[in-house]
């Protein structure tokens, strides 16, 4: 059996008394696409943010590429990593946000170059060439000089994907990447993600696009009230769900 790229074990998280994650465990195999589905407030975003260490689990551990995230075990104690070590670990993951979160004071090219220049210390010329290539990959070569405010939502999200890819992550995290978009712009973003999946990128995607999940996901995870209720192949979870709560959710979403 291949070792998982991401191993989540017994992760729990509480926000001021409110449970967001309750003993969640999950494996993500390299090269696979996992789609997280579930109702509002079920903990999908929190789980994703734990993997990227934007949120720290209260208990439990997450291993990425064999390395325990955020803490180091020494003897019978866990020691928190420094900000610098956490920043280094984050480089293995790329994150795409629901609201894009592009840097508004930089052009599309500047957004993609930023990590290359500031974090990877690449020379400007080299960084610019790399960033241009990435923008071309998401179909935005001609928009390199535009500021985010001059781009449509779909274009902004594609720049955000290019920005994340620039750090050469082993894992890409998507938090409802199309839910802030007008319906006619959803397709172009999904197309980029589809191409990314085909290229062999490991991905965890929180999404309400069930058609996309059915088509691209190797594994679908349904969450409800802070726990994983059901998981399996897209076919099994989306077409023949076993759990009552999954069935209810799907019939509510599909209408």
């Amino acid at each position, binding site marked *: 059996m291949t070792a998982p790229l991401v191993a989540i074990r017994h992760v729990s998280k509480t926000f001021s008394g409110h449970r967001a994650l309750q003993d969640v465990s999950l494996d993500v195999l390299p090269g696979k696409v996992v789609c997280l589905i579930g109702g509002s407030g079920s903990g999908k975003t929190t789980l994703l943010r734990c993997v*990227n260490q*934007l949120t720290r689990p209260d208990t439990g551990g997450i291993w990425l590429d064999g390395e325990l995230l955020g803490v180091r075990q020494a003897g019978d104690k866990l020691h928190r990593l420094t*900000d*610098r070590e956490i*920043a*280094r670990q*984050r*480089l293995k*993951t*790329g*994150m795409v*946000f629901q*609201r894009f*979160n*592009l*840097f*508004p*004071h*930089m*052009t599309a090219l500047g957004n993609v170059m*930023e*990590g290359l220049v*500031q*974090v990877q210390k690449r020379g400007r010329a080299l960084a610019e060439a790399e960033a241009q290539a990435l923008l071309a990959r998401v179909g935005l070569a001609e928009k390199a000089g535009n*500021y*985010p*405010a*001059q781009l*449509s939502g779909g274009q902004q999200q594609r720049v*955000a994907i290019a*920005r*994340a890819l*620039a*750090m050469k992550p082993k894992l890409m995290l998507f938090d409802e990447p199309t839910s802030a978009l007008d319906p006619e712009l959803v397709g172009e973003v999904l197309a980029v993600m589809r191409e990314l999946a085909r290229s062999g990128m490991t991905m965890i995607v929180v999404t309400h696009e069930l058609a996309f999940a059915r088509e691209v996901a190797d594994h679908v995870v349904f969450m409800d009230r802070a726990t994983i209720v059901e998981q399996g192949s897209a076919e099994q979870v989306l077409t023949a769900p076993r759990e009552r709560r999954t069935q209810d959710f799907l019939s509510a979403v599909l209408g």
Partner: protein
Amino acid sequence: MMDARPGLAPGFPDISAIPVARRTYYGRWFAAAVIILVLLALARAFAHGQIAWGVVGTFLTVPVILTGLVNTLVMSVLAMALGTVLGVVAAVMRLSPNPVLSGSSAFYVWLFRGTPVILQLLLWFNLALVFPTIGIPGIWSGRAVDIMTPFLSALLGLGINQGAYTSEIVRAGILSVDAGQHEAAQAIGMGRIATLRRIILPQAMRVVIPPLGNEFISMIKTTSLASVIQYPEILHNAENIYYANSRVIELLIVAGFWYLVVVSILSPLQHLLERRFARGAQVHGR
């Protein structure tokens, strides 16, 4: 004038052809009359008053006044620069998760906002009374009277006080930046300092520049307080002249004229700066 179109209720005629009557603005006429009367009274007072306008004209460009003007500008720019550096550092410290840093920043703001700036100027200037020598132990030291010149006292007094105010402005600017910006920067592996310098502060600037421009204009005039510690800024020099020739009002008018000129030039400059930092914010099209 009945609209004969079928299907619409009667009794609501077409009024598009009826002209709109001009309204008489009694209030405006009354206000204008009052203002004109006041201006006439003032003009009469100044004409009958003993203002030697010739003296005003002569002293407007004498070297002492112009040197004073330059000193005022130099002090304003330097004190504002010091205040901005201190303000940014204090704001960043204040927002740091480290309680020692945020606590000392809060203390700094409390101390320097809580006392009059003229008192602070006098304290710096008279430091020699309590600390005859100052310096870094074992490396360098000097006599406080020699070091605490009017220039340095004014710079420290005005700059450090300004830093306390500026830090609150910068802090508000930093807080106005969306939390998603921090997270996006973290997600591409940027550290705290790089995130601040590259992502947060440039966006905070957009919010910070207008109030900071306001502070600078205020600083131009606050430098006049440094006259109490013998710093030769424009008001101090004007005073020195009228102590000698007793043309008090004339010289105050001279100083006032120059303050107005400087402030009038600064407003358009502030506008330019605002445009520079609005990059990417309100671009047209879409």
